[in-house]
Structures are given as C-alpha cells and as structure tokens.
C-alpha cells in the first residue's frame, strides 16, 4: 500500500487535516471549529466517571498496555557490533535482538569498564548508526542476489545470475588479465574495514596470492598524519579516549567529534567538567564547538600560522621547556649557514654522514649528539651563532635549529603577524601560547590535516608547540587516538599456515631476522627501525602501493596534478616533474609503481568500498578514464553503492549480525568485540571470505579448462593457478568467517594482544576483550609505550622517559628537514603557506568530511537514517554570503570550479565562516546527473611528499607517500541554480 494513503487522514495542510478532523469529529458529535477550551476544563469530566467511581464498570484495562508490552519481546539476544571503520571509537558492544527470524533491534550492552575506578568508563558506547543498524539489514539499499550488468556501466540494467556464473566470469577475467598483462592486471582498490576484519584480511590475502596490486587505502583516503610521519618517523601514536581526563588543555582541531566520534565525545565534555579547557580550532563554529570553551576561527587552510604564533609567544616570553626540547628534538642540532644542511661528522672529521652536532652550553664547543639515545651529555645551546672547523680546513658558520626557528618566528609569526595570516585573534594567540606552556596539553588533530594541501605544516607547527612546552610522552598528552593492534588482520593476510601449525612462529622468525640484520649493520638502531624494514618487505609482498602514482599513471589524475594554475607556486616543477626526479633518484622503485606505467589494469575489485563516492573527482575520472580500460569491475557488496552501480558484477554479501566477526579497534576505545551470526544472511548473500574462496577456486577450474597451469608474478617467478584456492583457505583450515575469527584469536594470543590462554569460546561468551598489548607488528613500536589495561593510554613515553631514539634522519623528533626539496621549497622548518588555488581563482573554499549519521557511505542511503536530516545533499554556507548571492535556505545552488560543477541544496547558517562552504558525504547518485560535490575536489597531493632518500621519507603499508586526498580549501564559485 502507498504509505501516503495509510497516513492520509492526518496529512499536512489545512485542507487535508481539516477533512480528517471533520470526519472524526462527526463521529464524536463535536464541531470542527473549536476543540479547545470548553472540553479542556476539569469541570467537564465525562459522565462515565460516575460509573467508574461507583465501581460498576471495570474494563480489562491491562489489555491496551500490551500494544507496548508486546514490543518489548524477543526470541533471542546475541552479541553484536559493527565493522564500520569508525576506528578511533568503534568496537561498541551491542545486544542484538532477534524476533521471528529477523533482527528487530539492538542496544548497547554498556559493559565496557573504566581502566580503573578513578576514570570515566566507556559506557554506554554505541552511537545512532549502531543503534539503528537493523534498519540497514532490511533497507532498500540491500543487495540480495548476484547481479550481472546487461546495460551500460552505471545504467542500472541488471540480470540476476548464480554465484557460479558470476564467479566464472570473474575468474576468466582474472586469468585473461594475468595472461595478457601479468599480475599488474589485478587491482584490489583496497578497502576500508567496512566489510569486517575477516573480509579485509581476505582481500589482501587474495591480492597477495595473485600478486595483484592494492593502492594503499589508508594513504589514498588521506587518513594519514604526514606531519607526524615526518616529524617522528611514524604516525600510529594514539591514546585512549580516557586520556583526555588527565589533560588540562584540550585542542580539538581538523576534526569534528560531534559527528565522527560520538561515543568518545563525553570524554571531552567530562574532561571539561573536570577542569580542562576545551579549544576548537576550525574555520567554522562546527558541531563540536558547542561543547568547547574557546573557538579559534582560523581561515581555511591557515592553521599553521596560528600554531606558529603560539610558538613565538612561548619562546618570546621564555616559557619553553628547555630540557625537553634539548633531548627530544633536533632543535639543538647545528645547521651549516652555507649549505643549510646539518653539520655532520662527514663534514667535521670524515665520519658518519648522520652523526650530528650540538654546542655544549658550558664549554661552547662542538659535541656529538648521541645517535643511540636522546640523552644529552650535559646542557646544550639552543641559541647563538657558532663556527665549526671542517676536516677540509674550512671554517663554517653554524647555528642550532632552534635559533633558525626563533628567527623565523620573530620575523613572520609574532601574534600580530600570525593573526593576520591565520585569522585567529591576537588575544587568543597570546592567551593560548601562555596556556600551552603552562598546562598539560593534549590535542585531537583529525584527518582534515592530511586533507589540507599544507596539512603537514599544520601538524609540524602544532607538534612544535607541544615540543616547546614539553607536552608529549606524559599522561594527558598526545595528538590523536590512532594506534591499533591489528596483528589479526595483518598476519591473516600473509601467513602460510595456521598459528597452531607454527604460522605465527614463522612470521616471528622473519621479523627477528630483520632485527638481527639491522642491529648488525648499526648497533645504535632500534627494534622499531628493524620492524619498519620488515613491514616494508611485507608491504611489497601484499602488493600494497602508494596510491598517488597509480592514479597518476592509470586513472587520468595527471591532468589534475600537473595543472600549473592550481599548483603551489613555491614549487620548482609540476607533480610529474617531481615524480620523474624521484624515480630517477631511485626513491620509488618498480615495487611502488604498480601497475607499471606500461601495463593496463584489467580487473578491478571492490569490497564494500565506494571510490565513486570518496575518490576526489573520481565520479568524473573513474568512469571517463579508468573504467574504459577495465575488462571486469566487480563489487562484493552489502548495499548498492554508487560504485557498485558501475560494476559488471555485484556479489551480494553478508552484513554485520549475519556472519561471525571481530572488530579490530584503535586505541581510542581499546576493546575487541565479537560479532555473532544472529541470523542467516538474506537471499543469496555470502560471507566475503567464502566469496573470495569461490572466485579463486573458479580461477583454478577455469585455468585448467583453458589448459593453463602457471602465471608469472611481477618478480618474474611462476605461480600455479591450482594452488590459489588451497593457499587461500590454508588447505581447508579457513573456510568460513568463524574459522577465520578463531584463527584471529590465536594470532592475537600469539602476538600478546590477547591474554595468555584466551580462547574463541571465551570471546564468544564474554563478547569483548581488552588489549593487553599493541601486538608484534609496527604499531607496537609506533606508540612508544607499553599498553597497561589499568591506566589511560598515552604515546611516546619510551622516548621521554627512556630516551629511546626516533626512527628519523636525526634520530630525534625532527623539525628541520635539510632535504634539498624542502630547502628549495622553503619548508625546511615548520612554516605557513597559503593553500594553492586548487580548482582555479574562485571566491569560496570548500571544507567537509564525515557526515553525522553515516560512516562513510555505509548508512547514507538508508531511509531510516535519512529521515534524521533533510535526506539529500546540502551545502552549509554563511547566511550573509547566501544573501549576497540571492540564495535562500533550501534553494538549489550550482557549485563549480575550473574542473567540474554540481548542484546542491543550500543550508544557511551564521556558524559557517564567510567564504567557506561545508559539504559532508553523500552518494553520487543522490545528486543531479550523479555529479557529486566530490567531483570538484581534485585531491591534488603535495608533490614534496614524493621526496625520498631520507630516513623518514618512505612508504610502507598504511604509511607514507603523497596522500591524493587534499580537498579542504579547494576553490569554488557558487550561484543560484
């Protein structure tokens, strides 16, 4: 029945409402005009009261309550959670209620304890998406049967086919690709963890076995902290959410917890009640700011100047922590005035090129800065100009980095100048500079940093402020909540045999060999450095590659990246020019440049992954440039995404509550949560793992039928088609999601992530388990602290308390990059640069990010959740700007730049900064002509991040290389549509 008919009696508008009212009023004997006062007065109680009072009429009134009581009934309750990639939080423990064979509702179990009684617990832990997830299972966006395209890509003409037919088509395409282009033909556009920990491992495992290519998802989407990566040599240095409670001053920046971290938001408001001040640094008075004390209204893309203003105040007012700075950072290291390079032993006595120098404050003489520890042998000079005698007899002028920094700050970033550049008021810069120096300070910087062209400068400037004030490596400090223990996912992708058969021992032996080799080469090296080398090797084996080069070579992004009008004017050449130089210098090799520029990708796989939504300008370039090259696009999906609409084959998959799973959490909420199979998946949906196994089995069968036995991997080695399936399932050990979750538990026990002796049965019973450590892979070292389940977690303690060195060029938190490219571009020191005119000379600057009621696009088109807002794309803009353009709230606007245009509804608000416009995520097919706002975003990566030949300028899985996702601050014009 048409919904409108059902509720027609109460329809809006005077005519319909009145008609409805008239009808029922007739029945009750009233007149339509006035229902109000007479019947409202207590004196006019109906006559049957008398009967009731007399006890002559006692109806069975318990009955009507059953309307409601019957709602509070179910057949069973299981554990559940959501494998969304809401990583800093996530892992929420839910009860899942099943009634009549369907999931009817879910509710937070609220059993996630505090680390100890002095801290706030995590409960109830679970947001609006999780508390409504049952609606997704049964929403109209759900895919239930395998679909094969019969019209044009994106046309929406499908034929229902069997899994057998679908996987045979895919298998043939994979074989065709391997035979014609080699293994570079197979692309897993590597997924987020939306499909779950098991599916995620499965995708990588499949790619690993096929020797395919996975453009690194993490870098591709800009979920990186390039500034941290370059400053500290790593970026997974998270804290737990309760760490906020140990802080006195909290900066929320490049983020919006109200939308993106609802379950952790209370730690912020509770820290505020505990006495901390909360400061939001954002262009708009964003939805997190109502919970803050101070809003710092930086202009879009100008954050670095704000932080540098704080640094100037601290130095100028002599508020800095000199010992912290001297030990932890490169600020005391000497730089040659003639070359801009660090003074090294190679200069002084022909020694080690990475042996650097400081000035002994007492003797005013040169002294070697230890490479194996951060501890200085006595006080060192931070200020001054000195001379150094070189082994070739020359004497050169040298100055500590600190002096260079101070000079630059005094020249360009006094509060007045920093204010003019950043938009932050002078009074705030002074007040906050002083406060950071005196208070235990923590930041939460979100991934908007990596989505800003000069976001690395925002970060480096912020870390400088924290360094000057001694604000890291202590309780209540840290920069974000992104550390993880993902050994279960990482190792399941590449293990050769089950843990019980020595699979993890084999991996541990490999790791150990890297450690021993590096230690032999350089006794001052750390386990952390060795583990990075190990991870680099596994990265290559997995086929993970930097995404920028893939997009540049194969998806048409060269036309964006090389557009000179949009480029940073301070760069010496185009992105392509930098790339060529980097390849010529050997910084990027054939292992990174995959598919090779002379190969053509053939098969493109997506796992609950939606590049048409999230790939900047992908809604234009993918269909126009990439997709025509591809012989097969297939999606393993639970819901019809914009990208699935372009697929040749869509394979329907089981969603949360329909398969066994385990969340893989971040440090923000350090708990693994079990997801039970509460109900069977609908239609012909299968677990992704099973689907992948079927594809690989089919590859073996089809190859055999075609008389093929082997293919050649990109190393030139032969691999057998008929081994793919058996290797994928570890000879029958891993056939189902449940098998995989069991294996993951064993991996985590072997890696000390779970307590000794922990079992799958225990997980299944208890539903949740807290980390006991960050495992054995790269995250263990990145955090630089032992995980203590009984305390809030904060990073970098090893460096501060134990003086362990950082995995950087200088072995210290590094604020000066004497790399030629950085020297040439004027970014050797943290500085401020206006964002380039990406998109052309247009008056407005775009910002945006994650929406409130969807994790990426997972929940975006669910009708139930779409009724929590306008149900369609909206762009927030300043009310005065809208008036000036003659656009009213609710009207459509055309938004355009040099590259593309879209139409979108305007939502006006005084809380948007003038000349800013904010758009959160929507599906492409929610826009007219499927031209989403994302089409305007370009995502031009910063070419300097192609730099190599420098310890921390490197790439390994999830880390490093240019992030092709810089959309904040893209220029657009707006007019009434």
């Amino acid at each position, binding site marked *: 029945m048409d919904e409108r008919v*059902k*509720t*027609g009696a109460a*329809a*809006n508008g005077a005519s319909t409402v009145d008609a*409805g009212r008239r009808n029922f009023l007739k029945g009750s004997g009233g007149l339509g005009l006035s*229902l*109000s*006062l007479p*019947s*409202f007065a207590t004196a006019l*109680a*109906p006559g*049957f009261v008398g009967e*009731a009072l007399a006890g002559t009429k006692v*109806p069975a009134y318990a009955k*009507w309550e059953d309307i409601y009581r019957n709602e*509070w009934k179910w057949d069973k*309750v299981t554990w559940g959670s959501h494998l969304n990639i809401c990583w800093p939080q996530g892992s929420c423990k839910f*009860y899942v209620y099943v009634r009549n064979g369907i999931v009817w*509702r879910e509710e937070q179990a609220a059993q996630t304890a*505090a680390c100890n009684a*002095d801290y*706030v*617990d995590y409960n109830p*832990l679970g947001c*609006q998406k999780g*508390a409504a997830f049952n*609606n997704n299972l049964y929403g*109209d966006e759900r895919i239930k049967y395998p679909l094969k395209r019969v019209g*044009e890509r*994106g046309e*929406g003409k499908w034929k229902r086919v069997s899994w057998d037919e679908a996987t045979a088509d895919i298998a043939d395409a994979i074989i065709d690709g391997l035979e014609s282009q080699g293994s570079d033909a197979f692309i897993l556009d590597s997924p987020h963890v939306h499909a779950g920990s098991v599916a995620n491992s499965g995708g990588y495992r499949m790619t690993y076995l096929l020797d395919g290519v996975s453009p690194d998802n993490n870098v591709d989407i800009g979920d990186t902290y390039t500034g941290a990566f370059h400053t500290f040599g790593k970026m997974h240095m998270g804290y737990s959410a309760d760490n906020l409670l140990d802080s006195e001053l909290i900066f929320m920046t490049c983020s919006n917890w*109200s939308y993106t971290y*609802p*379950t952790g*938001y*209370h730690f912020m408001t*509770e820290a505020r009640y505990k*006495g901390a001040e909360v400061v939001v640094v954002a262009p708009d*008075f964003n*939805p997190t700011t109502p*919970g803050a004390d*101070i*809003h710092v*209204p930086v202009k879009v893309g100008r954050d670095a100047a704000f932080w540098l203003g704080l640094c100037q105040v601290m130095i100028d007012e002599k508020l800095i922590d000199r010992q912290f700075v001297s030990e932890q950072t490169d600020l005391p290291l000497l730089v040659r005035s003639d070359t801009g390079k660090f003074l090294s032993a190679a200069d002084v006595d022909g020694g080690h090129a990475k042996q650097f120098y400081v000035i002994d404050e007492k003797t005013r003489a040169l002294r070697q800065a230890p490479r194996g520890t951060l501890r200085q042998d006595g006080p060192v000079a931070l200020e001054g100009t000195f001379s150094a005698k070189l082994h070739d007899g020359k004497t050169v002028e040298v100055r500590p980095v600190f002096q260079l920094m101070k000079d630059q700050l005094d020249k360009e970033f006094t509060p007045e100048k920093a204010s003019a550049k950043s938009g932050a*008021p002078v009074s705030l810069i002074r007040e906050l500079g002083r406060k950071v120096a005196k208070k235990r300070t923590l930041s939460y910087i979100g991934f908007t940093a990596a989505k800003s062209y000069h976001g690395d400068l925002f970060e480096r400037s912020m870390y400088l402020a924290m360094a000057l004030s001694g604000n890291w490596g202590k309780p209540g400090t840290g920069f974000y909540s992104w550390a993880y223990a993902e050994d279960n996912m990482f190792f399941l992708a590449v293990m050769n045999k089950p843990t019980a058969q020595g699979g993890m021992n084999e991996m541990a032996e490999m790791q150990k060999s890297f450690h021993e080799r590096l230690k032999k080469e350089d006794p001052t090296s750390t386990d952390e450095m060795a583990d990075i080398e190990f991870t680099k090797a596994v990265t290559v084996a997995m086929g993970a590659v930097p995404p920028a080069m893939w997009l540049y070579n194969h998806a048409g992004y060269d036309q964006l990246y090389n557009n000179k009008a949009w480029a940073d004017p301070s760069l010496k050449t185009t992105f392509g020019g930098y790339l060529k130089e980097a390849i010529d210098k050997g910084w990027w090799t054939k292992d990174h440049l995959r598919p090779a520029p002379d190969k053509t990708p053939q098969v493109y796989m997506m796992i609950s992954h939606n590049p048409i939504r999230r790939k900047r300008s992908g809604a234009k370039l993918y269909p126009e440039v990439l997709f025509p090259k591809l012989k097969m696009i297939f999606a393993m999906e639970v819901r019809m995404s914009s990208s699935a*609409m372009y697929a040749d084959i869509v394979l329907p998959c089981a969603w949360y509550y329909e398969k066994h799973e385990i969340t893989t959490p971040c440090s923000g909420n350090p708990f693994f949560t079990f997801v039970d199979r509460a109900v069977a998946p609908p239609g012909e949906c299968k677990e992704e793992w099973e689907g992948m196994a079927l594809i690989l089995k089919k590859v073996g069968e089809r190859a055999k039928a075609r008389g093929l036995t082997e293919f050649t991997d990109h190393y030139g080695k032969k691999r057998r088609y008929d081994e793919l399936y058996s290797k994928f399932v570890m000879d029958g050990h891993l056939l189902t999601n449940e098998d995989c979750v069991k294996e993951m538990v064993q991996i985590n026990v072997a890696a000390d992530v779970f307590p000794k002796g922990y079992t799958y049965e225990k997980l299944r019973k208890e539903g949740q388990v807290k980390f006991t450590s960050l495992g054995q892979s790269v995250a263990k070292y990145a955090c630089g602290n032992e995980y203590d389940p009984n305390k809030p977690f904060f990073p970098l303690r090893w460096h501060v308390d134990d003086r362990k060195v950082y995995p950087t060029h200088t072995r210290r938190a590094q604020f000066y990059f004497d790399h030629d490219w950085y020297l040439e571009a004027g970014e050797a020191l943290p500085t401020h640069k206006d964002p380039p005119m990406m998109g052309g000379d247009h008056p407005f600057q775009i910002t945006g990010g994650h929406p*409130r009621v969807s994790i990426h696009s997972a929940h975006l*088109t669910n*009708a*139930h959740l*779409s009724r*929590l807002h306008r*149900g369609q794309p909206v762009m927030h803009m300043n009310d005065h700007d809208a008036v000036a353009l003659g656009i009213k709230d609710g009207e459509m606007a055309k938004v355009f730049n040099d590259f593309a245009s879209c139409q979108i509804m305007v939502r006006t608000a005084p*809380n948007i900064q003038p000349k800013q416009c904010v758009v959160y995520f929507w599906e492409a097919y*929610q826009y*007219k*002509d*499927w031209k989403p706002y994302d089409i305007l975003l370009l995502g031009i990566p910063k070419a300097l991040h192609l730099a190599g030949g420098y310890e921390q300028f490197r790439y390994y899985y999830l880390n490093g290389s240019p992030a092709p996702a810089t959309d904040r601050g893209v220029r657009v014009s707006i007019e009434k549509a």
Partner: protein
Amino acid sequence: MAYVPGGSKKELRKADRQLATVIDLNKCLGCQTCSVACKNLWTKRPGTEHMRWANVTTYPGKGYPRDYEKKGGGFRDGEPQPGKIPSVIDSGDNFQFNHNEVYYEGKGQSVRLHPVSNVTGKEPEWGYNWDEDQGGGQWPNPYFFYFARMCNHCTKPACLEACPTGAIFKREKDGIVLIDQDRCKGHRHCVEACPYKAVYFNPVAQKSEKCILCFPRIDKGIANACNRQCTGRVRAFGYLDDRDSQVHKLVAKWKVALPLHAEYGTGPNVFYVPPMGARGFGSDGEITDGSRIPLDVLEGLFGPEVRRVLDVLRTERAKMKAGQGSELMDILISKKWTDRFGGFTNDPLTQS
C-alpha cells in the same frame, strides 16, 4: 492499580512518586542516538512513523514539532490556553525514497535518489531536524546547542486535563503519563493542550500516542531507552524524591537543572542543565570572558534562575581546576555510567 478509567482529573493525575530526567545541555552532541533508540522501539508501527517521542534539534531553531513554542496549550495563571495541532510535516513527516528506481530501472544518471514528503508526495520543504546545525547569532559569534526533548511527564499534565474521555492518566507509582489506548477516542484535545506538543496522533489507529517512558522497561528495572542509550552520557534518571538519585541531587540539592518553559504551568519533570557556551568575541574581534550565548535566550527557555545556575557551574568547575573537587562536577561527569540511572540499572535483557 490506582488508575480509575475515566476517573476524576484529580485522581487521574495523582502520583505517589515521580520519575524525572535531567538532560545536560553541556554534554549533548546532537547525535540522535536517543531519537533513534526511541523510534526503533516504539514508533515504527503503522501510523506512528512520523512521530519522534524522543527528539533532538538545534537551538536556536524551530524545534520539534516545528514551532511547538508558538502553538499554544498549557496554562496561564492556572487557566488552560488554546492550542494548535501540529501537522504531520511539523511532526517530522516520513520521507519516502526511490531506491528501486535508481538501482534497477535502467534509468542511469537521469534519476537521483531523493526524498519525497509522505504527505504531499513532493520534494519536502520541512522534516524532522530540518534546521540542524543552523543556530543563531552572527559571525564571528554564532552560537547553538543541541536540545533533546521528550514528554515531560508533567505533574499537572495539560493533556490529561484536556482529555474528554479520561483516557490520560499518571501512573500512581511513578508518575508516568499514559494514554489508555482502549479509551482514547482520537479527539486530539490532548495534542492541542500539550504546550510542548509531545502528544501525536496516530492516523491508522485513530488514537493519540505519546512517550510512554518505556514503561515495559521501567517495570523490569531497566532505564528508558533514550536515557540509557544516550551515548553522550547526557541524561540522569530516577525518582525525584530519591535522595540518592542524581536527578534529586541536580534538581533539588544543587538546583542546577531547570524545567523548560515552567511558565506553561504543567510542572514538567524533565530538567535541563543550561549550556555554559563558548566565550564570545568583542566588537574589536578579540576574545572576551563572557559566554556567547545571550543570557536572555537561555532565560527565555529556563527562566530567571539560569544566571544563578551558570554561576554555580562556573564556581564548581573552578574548584575542579584548582584541585579542590566538587560533588556537583562529579555528578555531571559520572565516572560510573550506572550512577546516572537512579537504580534502574538492570540489563535490557528482561522482556515483558
């Protein structure tokens, strides 16, 4: 069972004890988990789809139902006031979407997924939470806060007074205001009379319905869904006369939780801790010490006590900053989440 069907108004509104909720506007993040929790449990039934018994909107804004503050009802000087019935659109509509047309009808990019009003069949011009995140003020001093609402389970409910069939009553044991669905004849006087517009009409059942404070849960010792599921830990719940409950301490002892529009005269039992607000900028663009939320805006909602409450919050927070501790701040923080619920702390695992 004190409820005497169709009993005198005096009897119908009698309650020995009163359950109350405190909503802390300094903690609310507008996430809608409360409204989702409520909808999922109670208002998916035919005829209830447009209803949001628990709702959150952005303030300043039109609220939910739209312009409820302008629709009359309640009492002035003890006298009932006339009211208007919100339309279904005012009450949130129930947008319909064209998924199948987009996905499967071969129309390609010529169609887009979009909502239509369930009432008009056209592009919606209003719906639930339509003015989310818009707020008030002027740049650089915009301000807003999220405002979660639900039925106030009033001590003197206007709906109860207005009901000609005596179908509305307060449960004697806990003061929950309920509409006897057998007895309700769908007159909707209650909808008009409620000044908070917390009563809705179910056009399928032809009855009025409203928040039932999750009584099937309450009866099992489980806090109601919007309160228990609130991920911002915004809400405290319990008996107002339970001296150990947070609601008692916040409302009666510390007196920092205020009723919304007390002037409506219904004796609401939902109380709000007013928002402290972010500091504003002066006319010179520099930072000031004062909140950017105009005091008169808050007084318009919560009355003249707001100033005192904000002073108390400031003073107690300063004590925390100084390391002196504060019982009030400890309550508002609630290290132990279960402390919020006045003893209604059973797991939601006992069914009716």
